[in-house]
């Protein structure tokens, strides 16, 4: 028996049309709106269901069978970021499904896979790195506190696993 080898995909949900990209406000305003938080009713299991539906549509019974064993390990509606775990041989199918998602709870979205890793640790580190980058970018404008909480949020989840 061979060990089950997994891939972890770190994705973030972008809302390209949702907000009005107004000219007023600091230059980081557009960035924040683009990366706006998701509907709080969106849970990991809801996303997993959506991905499975997508697999069945794009890759039929075969796709749903080979990659249907995925789990959404982490999803935070506040940051619109999540981690999916899927078998190494079929991670590209899940990647495709994520990339082809157009809508979430009626809102037009774009899902971007920003990191593929072999361990959840590495993927979490990338999530934290990106979160820190965002904090540095907003720095004074948005107020650092909210950003720091975001990082802790991810780290707390790590402890539970």
């Amino acid at each position: 028996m061979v060990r089950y080898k997994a891939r972890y995909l770190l994705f973030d949900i972008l809302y390209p049309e949702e907000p009005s990209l107004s000219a007023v406000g600091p230059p980081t305003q557009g960035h924040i709106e683009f990366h706006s938080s998701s509907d709080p009713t969106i849970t990991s299991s809801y996303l997993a269901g959506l991905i499975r539906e997508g697999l069945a549509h794009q890759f039929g019974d075969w796709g749903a069978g080979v990659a249907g064993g995925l789990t959404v390990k982490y999803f935070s509606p506040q940051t619109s970021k999540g981690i999916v775990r899927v078998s190494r041989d079929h991670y590209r199918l899940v990647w495709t499904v994520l990339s082809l998602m157009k809508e979430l709870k009626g809102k037009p979205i774009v899902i971007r896979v920003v990191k593929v890793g072999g361990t959840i640790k590495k993927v979490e580190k990338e999530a934290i790195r990106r979160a820190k980058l965002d904090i540095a970018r907003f720095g004074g404008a948005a107020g650092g506190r909210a950003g720091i909480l975001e990082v802790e949020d991810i780290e707390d989840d790590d402890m539970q696993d």
Partner: protein
Amino acid sequence: MSSTVKEPQTERKKDARPSLMQITVKSPEWSYAHLKMIYDPPFLQSTNSSLYPPDILTWRTTLTASLTQFLGVMGSAIHIDILHIKHDEAWLRLPRSDATMFGVAVSGYVGSTETRAVGFKILGMGDFLMGVVGKGEEDDLWEL
């Protein structure tokens, strides 16, 4: 010791037969399939109605249905050429890289028409049309 004796012999052989150029087609672009549409309960071979034998559009839609069920949108995108239809059999051409998945999708499919279940029987598959057509004709050759 024996090798020293043999060596000049083989050399002479080589000289006597100038080398011919040999080409092996290792990865042909296309694959060919010979399918039969089967029904349950079966039609009589002599039946001639709007349902049997299936026409080219029926072939196309049934094949697409089977591929969509098994492989989703990806399956429906497989390029299939229907080369010839004879009664309830058809000869198809498809990209070789999709041939395996095609075989699985088509052989495991059970669809339905108004009155009966429909499926496919793979009579032959191969990378060369000659082989696929020839295989089917072998049976006819020995029929009295």
